[in-house]
């Protein structure tokens, strides 16, 4: 019988200690909320697969206890009157919601610097970003506040911060986890993802929240994730593809050293390494930065001040509803969100739709076809660096949006192609975590998890790589 109350108290202590260091991983949490959940679970004698676990939830995911602000002024204080399916499932499995974690506003960003409520700090180096947009969740896990967290991905927003912070992060196959209750950013790309102190923790959480939801028409039928802790740790018979496009000549030396070491470990475990090519890789970021903003411009139209959230009333009242829209959205959205809404509106507008949005979706098919072809040739998974560099410093990339976008170059391919991918820590460079990425075929989470578990044991993630 799980001691929920003890688990809650211990979690509260850990969170308080981590936040006291200035991590600012959380936007909202309280010991009282934890205890209330614990008491209810104890009274019910709950005993699910996550009984007693305490899970942090990214603030773009609706829950019943805390506000869901999406780190935006336009939803400041917004308490969702319904709960995300993923959150309901983890609670039904006996877990408690630790609180809501910080992120880039509406999940648009790669560092949490676009949060309207201040950035989070990388526990490995507080002068550096934790990555984004799920930077708060990654920092919460990396700081020891929690062992598991929910994040979200549209263009790598779980894997990239996981890599920067030195934790495990998994993006499932598109449709694997219900999006009901995930505040939409880029609907054809969005997925709730998981972060964990290790691959097994992340996989456990993923197993609980996965599966078809009648409230999400794009969710896939429940397919078992497979045994996350298989008996054999050998990778004999496993073919790992190494795509040339992810290892350019000028790759950061720390990242290269870590990747080389990881590949050597995979080989030691018995895997066959195979050089492959995914020729459309370089078009992934441009395609992503058309599709995602386009869909975002539509998804964020609902924030108009009419039914909920911020309504800006200029002093002395406003003449008309158009003025309400413009003032609310102009003041409620931050600069990156505004930028993406305008970009997205532009690429969907009359005269530009074919050249931009339709073209980008076609390029996406080419990217997907690259993966399909490689996996059809007997490759079980691809190994790549997760990010081109370790965590950068605050302020380094905020002046040039494009520089920020390019940090997603290795991760956004999987979002565009809908395939599952994960990042696990594979070493350090001058104390900064480096992540290695495994990308699998559609619905093959179990394959990449199996390989990741083996690699995780074979690699010392805290060791300097050069």
């Amino acid at each position, binding site marked *: 019988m799980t001691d929920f109350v003890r688990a809650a108290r211990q979690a509260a202590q850990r969170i308080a200690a981590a936040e006291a260091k200035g991590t600012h991983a959380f936007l909202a949490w309280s010991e009282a909320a934890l205890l209330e959940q614990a008491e209810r679970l104890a009274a019910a004698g709950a005993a699910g697969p996550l009984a007693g676990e305490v899970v942090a939830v990214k603030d773009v995911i609706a829950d019943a206890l805390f506000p869901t602000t999406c780190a935006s002024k336009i939803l400041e204080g*917004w308490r*969702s009157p319904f709960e995300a399916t993923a959150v309901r499932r983890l609670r039904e499995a006996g877990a408690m919601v630790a609180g809501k974690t910080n992120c880039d506003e509406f999940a648009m960003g790669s560092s949490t610097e676009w949060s309207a409520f201040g950035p989070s700090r990388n526990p490995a180096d507080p002068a550096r970003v934790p990555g984004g947009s799920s930077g708060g969740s990654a920092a919460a896990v990396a700081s020891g506040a929690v062992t598991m967290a929910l994040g979200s991905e549209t263009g790598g927003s779980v894997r990239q911060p996981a890599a920067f912070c030195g934790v495990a992060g998994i993006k499932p196959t598109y449709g694997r986890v219900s999006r009901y209750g995930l505040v939409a950013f880029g609907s054809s790309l969005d997925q709730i993802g998981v972060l964990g102190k290790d691959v097994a923790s992340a996989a456990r959480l993923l197993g609980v929240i996965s599966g078809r939801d009648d409230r999400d*028409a794009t969710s896939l039928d429940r397919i078992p994730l497979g045994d996350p802790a298989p008996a054999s740790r050998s990778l004999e018979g496993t073919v790992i593809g190494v795509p040339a496009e992810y290892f350019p000549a000028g790759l950061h030396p720390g990242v290269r050293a870590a990747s080389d070491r990881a590949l050597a470990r995979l080989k030691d475990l018995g895997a066959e390494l195979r050089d492959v090519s995914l020729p459309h890789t370089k078009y992934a970021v441009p395609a992503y930065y058309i599709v995602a903003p386009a869909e975002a411009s539509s998804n964020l*139209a*609902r924030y108009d001040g*009419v*039914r909920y959230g911020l309504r800006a009333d200029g002093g002395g009242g406003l003449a008309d509803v158009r003025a309400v*829209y413009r003032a609310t959205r102009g003041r409620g959205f931050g600069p990156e969100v505004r930028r993406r809404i305008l970009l997205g509106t532009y690429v969907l507008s009359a005269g530009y*739709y074919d050249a931009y949005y339709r073209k980008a979706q076609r390029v996406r098919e080419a990217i997907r076809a690259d993966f399909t072809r490689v996996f059809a040739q007997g490759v079980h998974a691809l190994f790549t660096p997760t990010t081109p560099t370790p965590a950068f410093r605050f302020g380094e990339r905020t002046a040039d949006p494009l520089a920020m976008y390019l940090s997603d170059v290795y991760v956004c391919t999987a979002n565009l192609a809908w395939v599952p991918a994960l990042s696990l820590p594979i070493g350090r460079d001058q104390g900064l975590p480096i992540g290695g990425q495994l990308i699998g075929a559609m619905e093959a989470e179990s394959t990449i998890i199996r390989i990741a578990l083996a690699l995780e044991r074979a690699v010392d993630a805290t060791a300097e790589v050069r």
Partner: protein
Amino acid sequence: MSWETVVGLEVHVQLLTATKMFCGCSSRFGDPPNTNVCPVCLGLPGALPVPNEQAVWLAVRAAHALGCTVHPRSSFARKNYFYPDLPKGYQISQFEEPLATGGKLEIVSPERGPVTVRIKRLHLEEDAGKSFHDRVPGMTAVDFNRSGVPLIEIVSEPDLRSPAEARAYLTTLKQVLKYVEVSDCNMEEGSLRVDANLSIRAAGSPELRTRTEVKNMNSFSGVERALAAEGRRQIAATERGEEIVQATMLFDAAAGEVRPMRTKEEARDYRYFPEPDLPPLVLAEKWLASERAGLPELPAARRERFAKQYGLAAADAAMLSASRALADYYEAVVRGGVAAKDAANWVMNDLLALSPGGERLPLPPGRLVETVRLVDGGRLSRQAARRVLAGLAGAPEAPALEVAERLGLLQVSDGGAIAGWVRETLAAHPAEVARYRAGEAKLMGFFTGQVMKKSHGKADPKAVNAALAEALKT
């Protein structure tokens, strides 16, 4: 210069489903405002749409009834614009891949006779909420009960040539859609709404010139008046040498005129793109084929069959087939043993008198058959039958005979009673008897009247005549 008006209609029809298009809220009309709402139809952050299967089935049925090609694969799209009653800031509709295309509706034009109006497309979409601009001073007030209700949009080609034709199109369309039970098509309740496009050209010219959109018409007669007003306006403007500017015109029913909405410099840009939250709508070919085959007989076919099979005049066939309920009723009465033409008279004259508007049929066909039998059997006069029917309308559980008895309307055909009344009458009016026997045949009417009075109207007139004729012979 002889002008021709060219009109196309876009009709939005609410489907008869229990729930909304993309969520499980009730789609019932008339509930207190904002009580049938949920995260999905309020556009709350994180909500997602899931399509209603009944809406799809009804849309398919409507498409088949209009002779459309239903596409086994169609997809949803977002139409993006801002309006207070559009909660997501976009409407989920269909754009590049609609459910159905290429149908037709045969109408009777008052000017041109039978006309085929081509239907360009029929697609599924969701309704917006309802805005009230005058409920709260200085504010627009919104009720989201209607937000998300399933609609089909039916777009005609510009094949209509007059306001009267537009009206005929609407009446025929409504009849067809009600026949297949897809919608109530009630403009007063908002379950049918019409937007029109109108342009003019020289009579006989094939060109299509700049058209305006006409909106805010709230009845079929409103549509006719609005289009007449807009046609006049465009003709007058053109004859003055002015260009017709593309604009949206609003109909002002009180003034009987159209006036422009503020024109925008740029045409509206809806930025349509495929709805990423919904996979394509896929319908099995076999299922589509069986649905098409299973359509009920449509109004035009039924009307023709009534005329032919029952030997009815065109107007009568049309009246009896006006609604499916009425047509079914008529045929039930015929099946019950009443001769076709008699049944037609009974239904059109006696039954419909009891239900103005013909919307709700007041008594089951079996009861009407019983009543007709009583009349044919001489037990009830035609006038008395009307009262029996009225009584049955109040309480159709009792058989007609019982109602007739209760109301004391049964005719007396009893020879003895009638003979008695005849004897008394003739005895009371000897002078008239003598005059009748002397040749004033007209007095038969007088005697009949007297006998009927004695019987308090209950005597069977036929039997009375026969008895009088017999008694006056000698």
